[in-house]
C-alpha cells in the first residue's frame, strides 16, 4: 500500500465566514461540537478529511453552502 503523503488543492474559507458571522473560532467550535484544535486544523488547511456531519453542522451554524466554505484551487 503506497504511503506517500498526498497534497490537496482544496481551500477552506473559514476565516471569511467567521468574520461575516462575527464569530470566533472557539465559539464556532462550541456550537458545531468539534474541538477547537480540529477546527484550527481545518482553518489552516491541514485537515486530511472532513466528515459530512461536521460539514452539515458548519453550514447550519454559519448559514452557508458547502461551496461557500470549500473551493478547489488547482496548482
Amino acid at each position: 500500500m503506497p504511503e506517500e503523503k498526498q497534497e490537496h488543492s482544496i481551500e477552506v474559507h473559514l476565516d471569511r465566514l467567521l468574520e461575516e458571522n462575527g464569530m470566533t473560532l472557539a465559539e464556532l467550535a462550541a456550537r458545531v461540537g468539534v474541538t477547537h484544535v480540529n477546527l484550527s486544523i481545518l482553518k489552516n488547511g491541514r485537515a486530511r478529511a472532513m466528515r459530512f456531519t461536521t460539514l452539515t453542522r458548519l453550514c447550519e451554524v454559519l448559514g452557508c453552502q458547502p461551496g461557500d466554505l470549500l473551493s478547489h484551487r488547482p496548482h
Partner: protein
Amino acid sequence: MARVRNPMEPMSTAVTAILTLAAGLTGMGLLGGLFVGGVRFLGIGDKSVCVTDKTTTVGAGEAPATGVSPSPGATVDLSAHPDYCTESPGLLQSLLDAATQLVPFVFIVGALLLLFQLIRGAERDGLYTTQTAERLHRLGWWLLAGSVLVAIAVSTAEKALIDSLSRDGDGSVISGLWSWDVPFMAILTGLGVLSFARIMRVGVTMREDLDGTV
C-alpha cells in the same frame, strides 16, 4: 458512553507477574546453585545427568510383566524410551545437560521480555503506531525462528549427550539435526504474530488518516 477496556489487559498484568516471578526464581536458583550445596537450577549444580533417547524404543518382548493385565481383547505395549544416566558426569556432559534446559529457558524469557517491551511501548507510544508494529514484527520472528533453532539446538545437545553415555552411539551429532521435534504451535503462533504486525501497519496508516479527519 460504554467504558473502554484497556486493550493491553490482562496481558500486561500477566506478563509482568510472570517475569517478576521468573526473575525472582532465577536469582534464587543462581545464588543457591553457586553458594548453597545441593541446589539445582536449569542443569547447574546437577550431580547426576540423565537424558532420554526419544529416537529409540525398547520393547519388553512377550514376557508377561507383573501388575500389567490387559482385559480380554486389549493388548498392552511395554515399549519405552531408554534413559541414560551417570552419577559422575564429565564437564562436557554437564554442559550439554545444562544446555538442554538453559536454551529453552532463554527462548521463553526472551519472548516474555519482547512481549513486555511491546506492551509497555504500546502503553507509552500508542497502540496503532509504527513502533508498536515494529515490536510485534520482532516478536513474531523471535517466536518463529527462535523456536526452530531451540528445537534443533536441544535435539543436537541431547544426541551428543546420548552418544557420550551410550556404547551404541554412532558418534555423529549431525543426526540430532534431523531428529528434532517440530514446534508446530510456536511456528504457527510466530506466523500469526507476523501477520498481525502487517495488519497493525495498515492500522497505523488508517489512524494517521483519522488523525487528520475533522
